[in-house]
């Protein structure tokens, strides 16, 4: 039972993480390869503040704020670049942030990581047990889904899709492509930060090794597998991949084989991505033709 609850919580956290990336990759056409940076900034900010006895509400808000601000600062120069170059810039940013976690020992304790992150207490309710934490993540995931869906279904979201389809035509029709992209990127970063906060307080221990490019690949795979540019695709993708990934961990293998598990998992993920790209590039859920009207 506990295992099931654990899988549900992890899935919900990755649903938030994947939905935030879907706004950028699926709807705006921004291939962000450094999305894990904002996950990490959220996790570290909230962890550090609560470890210094700030209330969770303030830590959470600061974490979202800092994720958004760093997203904004990164987007200013990098969104001047085109497609592939933008991807490379974000890739670099992801690594820079990880190196910062690793080397700013005075703040982050470096490779030692931050142990003992307290369970959150929101509006004087403590979310300590697994069912309680599940409720908390479910609440935040629902909120994230509703807010992002509201954005996607609005005229603003329509412009994002237009930019994804043909940025020159969008610009010619009077849309400030650069500004729209920045906004999309900042919103995506904020929600990635939220996922990071929830993850940090859940595992109670974070270290720089948790925020490698592998995490970005995983969340990108979730979005692509589930169906980018769809409302439900990332949710389906997150559930499938997290259940698969976490259940591998509990596979009872003889000890001499268990060290092959992690590389094996990455090989499976890699092949999965290739197979998807080849046979079903639109993902498990196909992009629906949506009406432009507000729901």
């Amino acid at each position: 039972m506990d295992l099931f609850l654990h899988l549900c919580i992890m899935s919900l956290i990755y649903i938030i993480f994947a939905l935030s990336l879907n706004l950028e990759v699926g709807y705006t056409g921004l291939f962000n390869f450094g999305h894990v940076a904002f996950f990490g900034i959220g996790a570290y900010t909230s962890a550090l503040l609560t470890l210094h006895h700030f209330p969770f509400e303030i830590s959470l808000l600061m974490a979202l704020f800092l994720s958004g601000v760093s997203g904004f600062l990164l987007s200013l120069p990098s969104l001047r670049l085109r497609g592939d170059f933008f991807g490379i810039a974000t890739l670099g940013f992801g690594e820079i942030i990880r190196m910062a976690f690793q080397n700013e020992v005075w703040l982050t304790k470096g490779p030692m990581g931050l142990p003992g992150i307290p369970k959150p207490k929101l509006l004087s309710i403590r979310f300590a047990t697994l069912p309680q934490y599940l409720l908390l993540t479910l609440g935040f995931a629902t909120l994230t889904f509703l807010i992002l869906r509201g954005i996607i279904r609005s005229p603003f979201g329509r412009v994002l899709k237009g930019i994804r389809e043909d940025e020159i035509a969008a610009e010619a029709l009077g849309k400030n492509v650069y500004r729209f992209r920045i906004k999309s990127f900042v919103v995506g970063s904020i929600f990635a930060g939220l996922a990071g906060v929830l993850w940090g307080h859940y595992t109670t221990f974070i270290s720089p090794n948790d925020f490698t490019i592998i995490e970005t690949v995983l969340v990108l795979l979730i979005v692509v597998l589930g169906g980018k540019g769809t409302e439900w695709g990332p949710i389906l993708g997150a559930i499938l991949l997290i259940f698969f990934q976490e259940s591998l961990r509990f596979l009872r293998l003889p000890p001499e084989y268990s060290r092959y598990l992690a590389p094996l998992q990455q090989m499976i993920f890699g092949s999965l991505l290739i197979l998807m790209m080849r046979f079903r590039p639109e993902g498990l859920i196909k992009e629906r033709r949506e009406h432009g009207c507000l729901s």
Partner: protein
Amino acid sequence: MLELRGISKAFGGIRAVSNFSATVEKNKITGLIGPNGSGKTTLFNLITGFIQLDRGEIFFRRERIDGFPPHEIAHRGMIRTFQLSRLFPKMTVLENLLLAPQRQKGERLWILFLQRQKIRFEEKRNVEKALSLLEGVGLSSLKDELAENLSYGQQRLLEMIRLLMADPEMILLDEPTAGINPLMIRKIMDLILKMRELGKTFFIIEHNMDVIIECCDWVFVLDHGEKISEGTPPKIQNDPRVIEAYLGA
């Protein structure tokens, strides 16, 4: 309406447009013709801010607009089309139209969740306008079809009514009738003439002389980036310099 003063642009050693001056009068249809590679599209790119000028000045409604980014120029009421149709392929016909209106409230992220009523109202009005425009050109049955599934002629027609949705003062068309059948050409020409009656100003690149003769009030002729002639269509047709440029005699 639009005034170009001595504008020049070179790409490396090639002088794409050199010292071009022209005035496009309000509520007129002005043509721009010239052999392939004579700099017509470059000129459009310069006017609409997609390429920056080397020298010269551009005034639109008495305001200097050279150096502005394309979306700023669109906001000021000048919108262009491209040589090949540029729709949003994976969006529906209706969505393509709804993207066009300028300065929509619902396109501002910060008020999305605060002014839902106003945005919904604006959206409803835009949908109604889009549907009636589709009705007018006989495309209403395709409103939920993806734009990429339309025939090329239908795509060009959709592009024209997208301009009507955007409702600019001045419209720059880059070969609006290239590669489509005579029936569709007729439809597009009728739309242009009707929009002129509604007070719009046109600047059109066109190779089809029938279109030029029927629609245009004034024509500029470009060759190797320089203006070699201007005048009314009949005058242009008999200008020996124009004939020489085209036939290379």
